[in-house]
């Protein structure tokens, strides 16, 4: 599903150029649940941005579902993000002025889905994360865990094959964090590929494969032994 070869990213500030990623090779198959770990400055966020089609590599090849994306225009990348990728951020990144339902509908607006269908699919997605009762609340009326569940619902509505989560539990308490990881495990079981950036080892232990970055290189890539599985009854969705 994801194949990158000899991928480099160099940030040029004019005076100094920083090589954030150095000759990375990586492939991720469908239905995987991968965590990317590493200290700050390790290049994990840069890798995530490139994998998520938010940024373009300086050199190298990136194939997503057999399509070369490294040379696509901004608008073509926007369409890929819209159709194939769902994003979940540490700071939730919901639009504050509109309610949960409208936030979840947003990706479908850009996909050109009709209003009736949008509402139906958004409600379904909110049901999936157990928030249909709060769909008319604005983000400031929701707890952190609830906000992140809205964000997950939003990432799911266009039925993406791939979900990127950037420190999804970073701003949450343990209980809410567990809820989020439980949802991820369920989604993964249903066939969604998930790639998650985190610096917490405990959180990474919930995934199936762990990639560790340092100084712009992948220094470790191994399956997770003793994966922590959250049973459904432990979480009250």
């Amino acid at each position, binding site marked *: 599903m994801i194949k990158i070869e000899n991928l480099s990213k160099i940030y040029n500030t004019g005076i100094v150029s920083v090589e954030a990623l150095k000759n990375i090779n990586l492939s991720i198959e469908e239905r995987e649940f991968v965590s990317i770990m590493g200290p700050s400055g390790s290049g994990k966020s840069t890798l995530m*941005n490139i994998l*998520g089609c*938010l*940024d373009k590599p300086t050199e190298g090849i990136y194939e997503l579902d057999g399509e070369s994306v490294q040379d696509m225009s*901004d*608008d073509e990348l*926007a*369409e890929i*993000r*819209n*159709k194939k990728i769902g*994003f979940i*951020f540490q700071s939730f*990144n*919901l*639009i504050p*002025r*509109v309610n949960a339902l409208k936030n979840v509908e*947003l*990706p479908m*607006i*850009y*996909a*050109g889905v009709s209003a009736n269908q949008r509402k139906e699919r958004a409600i379904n997605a909110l049901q999936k994360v157990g928030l249909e009762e709060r769909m008319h609340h604005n983000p400031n009326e929701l707890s952190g865990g609830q906000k992140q569940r809205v964000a997950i619902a*939003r990432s799911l509505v*266009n039925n993406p094959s791939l979900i990127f989560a950037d420190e999804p539990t970073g701003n949450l308490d343990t209980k809410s964090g567990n809820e989020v990881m439980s949802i991820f495990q369920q989604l993964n079981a249903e066939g969604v590929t998930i790639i998650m950036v985190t610096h917490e080892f405990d959180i990474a232990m919930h995934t199936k494969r762990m990639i560790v970055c340092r100084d712009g290189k992948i220094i470790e890539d191994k399956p997770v032994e003793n994966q922590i599985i959250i049973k459904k009854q432990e979480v009250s969705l």
Partner: protein
Amino acid sequence: MNLLESIKVSLSAIFSNKMRSLLTMLGIIIGISSVITIVALGESSQKVIDEQFEAFGAGFAYFSINWRENYTIRDLLTSDDIDVLKSTFSDEIEAIVPSIYERGTVKSKSQKIDAGIYGGDENYIKIEKVDMIEGRYLSDEDVKGKRQVCIIDKEMALEIFGRSNVLGESLDIEIGGSPISLVIIGTYEKPKTTLQAMGGETIGNVFVPYTTLERITGNGGFYSEFEMSMGKETDIDSLTQKIIRLIEKRHGNEGENKYMVQTAEAELESINKVTGVVTLVIGAIAAISLLVGGIGVMNIMFVSVTERTREIGIRKAIGAKRKDILLQFLVESVIISGIGGIIGTIVGLSLSFVVSSIIRIPPSFSIETVIIAWLFSAGVGVFFGIYPANKASKLNPIDALRYE
């Protein structure tokens, strides 16, 4: 994202910042309403001028010696010229008289009043229109007999005699130093037209047979000017050209450009030019306030873009293309200007109605002005919105998402 969605998103953004949106609109409201007021008032006064000319000046022409050229006594107009014109163009010409005007002083018991003394004939009423109240107008016999009769306006009668029924009274008047006594044969209502009010015409006008006036001043037979009025259907330009050619032929000065003609239509045109320029200049000044309003819109759009940088990042991350973001902010700016334009139009029209009722001219409402104003305010929205919207659409999603 289609236009309808953009409009919904923009409206929610506008309503979430009510005060700010309103203040931004205020700039546009003031700009549009002042432009509308000026243009509407300009149109109203145009209408008034047109109507006045229609009532008093249509079909009027004024011939004279061309003052820019040298002329001799040979070129001066004569009473024979007038008689020939009268018979040659009897179908077209309603009235034609030599234009003789003198300043005089009317003596009453206690004071002296300045008066304008006009020479006329029985048809002069068609050129200088008056409403008779009492008595009769000048007659053919008055002119032929050089009778010492006159017509005065009611206000002058009240001023001098203290009453309005003054028929048969004699009016003592001094013209060019020579005193003369005239019998009053009629009184008329002093016209209260806007044009005369504009001209500051406050002194009384006395009408006497032009032959009588000639005898008093002693320079009869030759004229430098005459006035005439023509029937409504007459082609004024071609008739006046024919008349000039005929007069030139009679005086043997063809092609020497000795005569000139002024028509009410030509004067109306030049007045319209002036009022048009005045309206344009004041309108341009008002348009500057619209420009300032537009800059206000641009400024607030920049604030809006900066404030929502993160939102732009989110939208881009989940699939918004450049044109989606561009459209969202452009629509927002057009809506602010558009609503401002609608309110401004209403305010401007009400203001012009109030002002025209204060200065007593009929209000003018033209749908063209309103449409132009709306299009213009929407145009302001596009023009001043495109730069901030373009800036928003170009934001890099990663930087935008990191923006605090």
